[in-house]
């Protein structure tokens, strides 16, 4: 639904310069120790993210792009304080002026309240042993939010285009696209400010992808969300983001408004990514 342009996102793809920063990351570094080859030597170390700075302004839609192994998933987990237990690193992350310190779940509650996450694989991100209603209500229960949970769940399920009786069904009764809608519902049911997606559309069929993309844009508009999306699909980025940050081997190699980066990429890695996008233009014969 490409209706009237959103006043927050001017047509040329730049975010309004006056918007306040919502998520600020400085000097983020993450390394992993790999399994050792000899019993007593420490294993080799993999630098997944190296000295990354990032700013996401309120209302903006930022896309984090890069090939596989570029560190984008690790970075996003670091930003969300969802690191894997084996990750080691440094750096500060600030959300709305308050520092996000990794620690026990109770200390992070304020942060979890204001963020929502959608993961890549709709077949793995929903607990197969829970009904959809309970899955979507998880943030409400985990954060012990007041209010009528059932009503909130029914409301958000309608918002993502699912029937109200979906809450009583099991995940395996839904298709991939529908499951991703459930995941989106879970990610926004508690009214977060920031919605983070880790390749949220990659596992979907193109036709379904287009529909869920529309839904994402709709949710952004209706709920006033700020978006941070990780993706390797550069073609998608032009339809979803205002700003693009390009990662390669754990470092930021380029950033800028999406229009400019795609039309005139500067860094060779960005150029390669843009050139690799399958477009609807047919290549010359042969």
């Amino acid at each position: 639904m490409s209706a009237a342009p959103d006043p927050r996102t001017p047509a040329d793809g730049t975010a309004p310069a006056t918007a306040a920063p919502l998520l600020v990351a400085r000097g983020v570094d993450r390394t992993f120790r790999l399994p050792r080859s000899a019993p007593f030597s420490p294993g080799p170390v993999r630098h997944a993210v190296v000295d990354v700075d990032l700013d996401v302004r309120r209302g903006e839609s930022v896309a984090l792009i890069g090939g596989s192994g570029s560190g984008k998933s690790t970075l996003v987990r670091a930003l969300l304080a969802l690191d894997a237990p084996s990750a080691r690193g440094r750096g500060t992350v600030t959300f709305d002026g308050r520092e996000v310190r990794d620690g026990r779940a109770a200390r992070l509650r304020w942060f979890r309240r204001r963020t929502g996450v959608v993961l890549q694989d709709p077949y793995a991100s929903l607990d197969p042993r829970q009904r959809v209603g309970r899955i979507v209500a998880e943030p409400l229960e985990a954060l012990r939010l007041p209010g009528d949970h059932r009503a909130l769940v029914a409301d958000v399920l309608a918002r993502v285009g699912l029937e109200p009786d979906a809450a009583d069904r099991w995940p395996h009764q839904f298709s991939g696209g529908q499951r991703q809608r459930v995941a989106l519902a879970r990610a926004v049911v508690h009214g977060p400010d920031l919605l983070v997606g880790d390749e949220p559309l990659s596992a979907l069929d193109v036709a379904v992808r287009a529909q869920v993309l529309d839904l994402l844009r709709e949710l952004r508009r209706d709920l006033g969300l700020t978006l941070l999306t990780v993706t390797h699909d550069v073609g998608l980025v032009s339809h979803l983001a205002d700003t693009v940050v390009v990662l390669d081997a754990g470092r930021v190699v380029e950033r800028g408004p999406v229009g400019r980066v795609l039309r005139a990429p500067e860094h060779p890695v960005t150029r390669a990514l843009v050139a690799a996008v399958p477009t609807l233009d047919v290549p010359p014969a042969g």
Partner: protein
Amino acid sequence: MTLDVTDLVVELDGRRLLDGVDLHVPDGGRVGLVGASGSGKSLTVLAVLGLLPEGAVARGSVRLDGRELLGLPERELARVRGRLVGTVFQDPRSALDPVQRVGRQIAEPLRLHRLAGRAEARRRAVEAAREVDLPDPGTLVDAYPHQLSGGQRQRVGIATALVTRPGLVLADEPTTALDVTTQASVLALFRRLVTDHGSSLVFVTHDLAVLAQVATDVVVLAHGRVVERATVPDLLRSPASAEARELVAAARATTWSAP
């Protein structure tokens, strides 16, 4: 090699999964088979190979260079598969045997069809690995699948499909599980190899943008039926059927066109 599928019907448990599919691939042609999930595109590939699920019944005609494949006894079909028809599947992780070295898997069709002895097969496997742009092919053929990246594994799959120089290559969503840069180079690989070897190609995908990179003609399937047939530029410019319009619109909505 030409492929002529005429009025192919596949039924399973009383349901018609394919309802009269017609598909014609000229010698050296590159035809894309596109449709939403469940439209029957993968099933068509399986029907050509004679690899339909247990209990499925196929009727109609599938001719490879004029020779009828439908109804051939399994032994004859096994001689066609891998030798005259090469297949590339979607998932690079599960299509390779994790306990066999990669070179051996590439060489397998040659050994199976008695086209080469051990030494010769290994030489051709290394050559095939080189052709698909795998780095350091002489050493890489001794690696195990888990030591390679997803993109490299998919290239191994392609090498395996092409090592016998088949006249027809069937590719079922071969780039869906790959990231964008790997996908681009694998698609370029398909274009080049198919032209170099003179093979015909049937390329199955749900993504028109991917298909545009590789095929000249496209057949659109929906609910087990062919709903449209066109050249790629014509389909992109003016799709006639509702399904094709939806696929083109979805492709436009999710990809980007260089100005």
